[in-house]
């Protein structure tokens, strides 16, 4: 009986370990595939051309800077919306709202997160863009701002879900201790609960950023896809072209192995590396060694 138990233990441990390692293996394999298909672009197109400001691949203009700035401006805009709304909603749901309100609001927020992004993009073209054009007196409503608003709306449910869980997990003793010391409710939230839930909230924000930078369909429909170099502050009111929309729009038409094909994979590689950088930045904060006081209290 001891031997068969041992055998089952071994199998289960092996299966679980494989699942755990496979996550790393898949990411590595994707990375190597992107490298294999994307690095030839560096050989075929001079680095100076790749960093130029004109993206017009059918005439061999492969400047990816407009795409980079397009993605960045839309992501930054979206996070400027998602961070206050996301964390604010999470704090409201977890700390301030009465229990019955929380039971209703939380599923509603998660329902918003379940909306397909294509549907939101559709609403963006039909409702949001015309409204922005009239309200802000712009030449056209198809701008980075429309994209940022939509993406903020898409990132908020993800952020709220995870941040709210993180805030919920903070032991009640923290809040009681703060209140006992005479802190007001806001002081408790801002200086005790939020810092204690820091790792969860940061994870929520990272997931929000990851979702935003990788979003394709919604931005493809509302940002106008114009490869404009978006470096001024007013560029938020001009059309932009994101890296994701570029890959989605052009991958179908490239002949396998052509220069255009390799450059598109290089753009994918850049996207991958940006996500990686964001995640590493987040992990370095999250896994920073906890102060001795925090270790003692928890």
């Amino acid at each position, binding site marked *: 009986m001891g031997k068969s138990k041992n055998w089952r233990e071994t199998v289960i441990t092996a299966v679980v370990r494989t699942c755990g390692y496979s996550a790393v293996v898949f990411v590595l394999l994707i990375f190597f595939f992107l490298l294999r298909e994307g690095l030839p672009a560096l050989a075929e197109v001079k680095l100076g051309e790749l960093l130029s400001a004109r993206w017009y691949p059918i005439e061999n203009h492969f400047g990816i800077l407009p795409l980079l700035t397009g993605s960045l401006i839309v992501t930054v805009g979206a996070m400027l919306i998602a961070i206050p709304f996301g964390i604010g909603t999470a704090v409201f749901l977890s700390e301030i709202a009465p229990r019955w309100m929380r039971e209703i609001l939380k599923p509603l927020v998660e329902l918003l997160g379940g909306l397909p992004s294509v549907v939101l993009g559709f609403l963006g073209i039909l409702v949001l*863009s015309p409204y922005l054009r009239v309200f802000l007196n712009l030449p056209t409503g198809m701008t980075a701002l429309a994209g940022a608003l939509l993406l903020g709306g898409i990132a908020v449910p993800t952020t709220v879900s995870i941040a709210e869980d993180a805030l919920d997990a903070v032991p009640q003793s923290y809040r009681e201790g703060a209140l006992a010391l005479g802190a007001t409710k806001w002081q408790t939230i801002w200086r005790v609960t939020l810092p204690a839930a820091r790792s969860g909230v940061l994870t929520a924000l990272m997931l929000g950023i990851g979702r935003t930078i990788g979003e394709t369909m919604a931005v493809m429909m509302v940002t106008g896809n*114009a490869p404009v170099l978006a470096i001024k502050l007013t560029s938020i009111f001009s059309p932009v072209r994101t890296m994701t929309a570029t890959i989605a729009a052009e991958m179908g038409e490239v002949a396998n192995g052509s220069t255009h094909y390799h450059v598109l994979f290089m753009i994918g590689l850049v996207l991958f590396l940006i996500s990686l950088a964001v995640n590493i930045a987040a992990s370095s904060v999250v896994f920073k060694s906890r102060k001795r006081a925090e270790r003692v209290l928890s």
Partner: protein
Amino acid sequence: MKSARFLLLFMVVMLAACKTGAQGPAAPAGGSMYIQNKGSDTMVNLALAWAERYQAEHPEVSLSVTGGGSGTGIAALINGTVDIANASRAMKSEETQQAIANGITPVEFTVARDAIAVVVNSENPVHELTLQQISDIYSGKINNWLQVGGDDRPIVRLSRETNSGTHVYFLETVLRLGDKTNPTLFSTDTLLLPSSEVIINEVRQNPNAIGYDGLGYIPPDLMDSVIAIARDASGPFVTPSIASVNDDSYPVARDLYMYTAGEPTGAIKDYINWILSAEAQAIVADLGFVPIK
């Protein structure tokens, strides 16, 4: 021992992933009755209408039609994954060479003709433009409607994506005025929209907008705001129609093509011959395109 087992598992996974995905040419479709048709979004409705009628008359043949843009169809033909590629522009010489390098000789058939209509918002007082003016608008030299006789409004240029044959044709014929050595490009703030419907939608509700599309895609409520185009400032300003395409007075008309891999045989040959017949060309006229003479 644990690390050895893990290493073995890792190597198995890596080896499984090492199978490269290079696509060989598709199995020859001459014998089978399944024809794949891919490419131009301009032609996709036409190709679908043809496919439906042909399948009704010949139930033993099954046709699949997909869009994706002329560039997509031609790339699929070069990769050998499609039987017939629809294109609203001619194949470029580099594309032909790539196909031949892959062992595929593309054969071109002109199956219909099309006019590209330039359309503005119905509130826009501008109704006539020369080719040069349209070229300057789209290349960024003219930025305000005042400069072409309209209101004081910024011009918002709408275009199809670069994989669209319509886009390439517009670049060559209008922006570059048919001159192959002309290096003019679309201005960087031209909106590259994914489909005709998005273009029409934006033109319909934005008074600053100018867009172009196949004549068959202009809805009835915008037909009055289609621009009459003249080859030069002195010439007659002609609106697009079947008549003005057939007598070559409308300067922005083009042929629509179907490409096959090599000379077509069997079911594909029958299909192409049927498309060139009077019955199929009647469908062409119904859909807003121009039948071949």
